[in-house]
């Protein structure tokens, strides 16, 4: 079939090339973003949308969080955090194991728990 009007053969090739280049750029950007992911040093723990803790990961600690169906046990261990035990039936949150990079999160939809990791990126305030 012969291409007619605006969509001539050369236009289609041109569009394909530009489209491919955008895809390539997108893929490179995504790769760079993931590659530069830093170690997190802070975790925000929320239950049903309410932030319970915003804690640094520079120590060892076990946090017992009462939830609708029992207790969730969160383990903080120098630079990483995990849900150690949860009353949820799927245990998906427990199986996610330890998270340690900024941007990562652990979700327990059954109990409404979310743990989000972040880095004190561009540290702007320090207490001494």
């Amino acid at each position, binding site marked *: 079939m012969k291409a007619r009007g605006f969509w001539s053969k050369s236009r289609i090739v041109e569009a394909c090339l530009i489209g491919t280049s955008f895809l390539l750029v997108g893929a490179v950007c995504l790769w760079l973003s993931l590659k530069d992911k830093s170690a997190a040093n802070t975790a925000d723990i929320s239950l049903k949308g309410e932030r319970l803790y915003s804690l640094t990961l520079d120590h060892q600690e076990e946090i017992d969080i009462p939830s609708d169906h029992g207790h969730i046990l969160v383990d903080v261990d120098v630079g990483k955090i995990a849900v150690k035990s949860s009353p949820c039936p799927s245990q998906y949150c427990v199986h996610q194991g330890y998270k340690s990079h900024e941007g990562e999160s652990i979700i327990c939809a059954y109990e409404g728990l979310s743990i989000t990791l972040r880095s004190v990126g561009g540290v*702007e305030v*320090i207490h001494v």
Partner: protein
Amino acid sequence: MCLSKSLLLALSTIALSLGLFSCSHNVHHSDMVYAYGTFWEVHLYEGKDEDLDEICDYIAETSRVLDLEASSVEDGLYALNHLGQVNAHPFLIDALSLALEMEKLTHGAFSYTVGDLTASWLDALGHGVLLEEEIVVDLLQKSRQTSIKIENESVIKTGEATIDLGALGKGLCLKKIKAKLDQKGFTKYLINAGTSSILFGENTSKSGETRVEIDDAPGRYFYAKNGALSVSSNSRQSYIIDEWTYSHIIDPRDGYPANNVDAVLLYGDDAAKLDALSTAYFVLGEEYASELEDMGYHVAMCKGGKVIYESAGFLE
């Protein structure tokens, strides 16, 4: 449009997009290291992961050199204390040289031989009691009878007291790291050695400054950039017995916990000297504070939740 022009357009799109991405993408490498008895936060806002690793490795290595328990380090402080003579690691030589310099500079308020006395005090205070005077006198005497001599790479110790360089190790390490960063041409970083010693480069904000808030004087703060801060404070480590607060810093002149001030903050360019001087002037107190300004440092001293001495223009 012919195919070659289309190709050119596509390549231009890629180059432009990558250029824009690299400009807008903030590099931030960070890690934590446990060294010198505390957690270090290392933030690099430029460079590569390898640069971060190099810094973290250096912190860990120098920490082992000055570790009083690291029996496997043949050229470190443990070996010096137990053998009396070592061919010392360059970092140990530098630390000891600085300790000797600081001892002369601080009216006897800095001592590298009061480690046993300090440890005994902390043990007693941790148990809610004061150290017996007899023990204080004995340990102080041993401290005064202990000295070191540096001959090229060799260090000789005489006397029974333990050499302890905890009062300047972190600062010296930060100073060396700054030299490494300068060598790489890096200016954007922050290295926090457990809040008692901090090395500031520039952060990613427009001004590049980090706001430093002072817990010992609520509401008071300053902005730091391209400098080093050393803090000696009771707020991080002190003991209350019979409603009296005892510091973790021992006055080498009388062997008792120093009580002139609650906190000393020193800001300047030499992290190593600042570390040692903040400890010494915590002991000396407000009376001697102007000496620090004569040395070119910004100083603030706090007591009772207020700033009782500050360099002009230092704090907000």
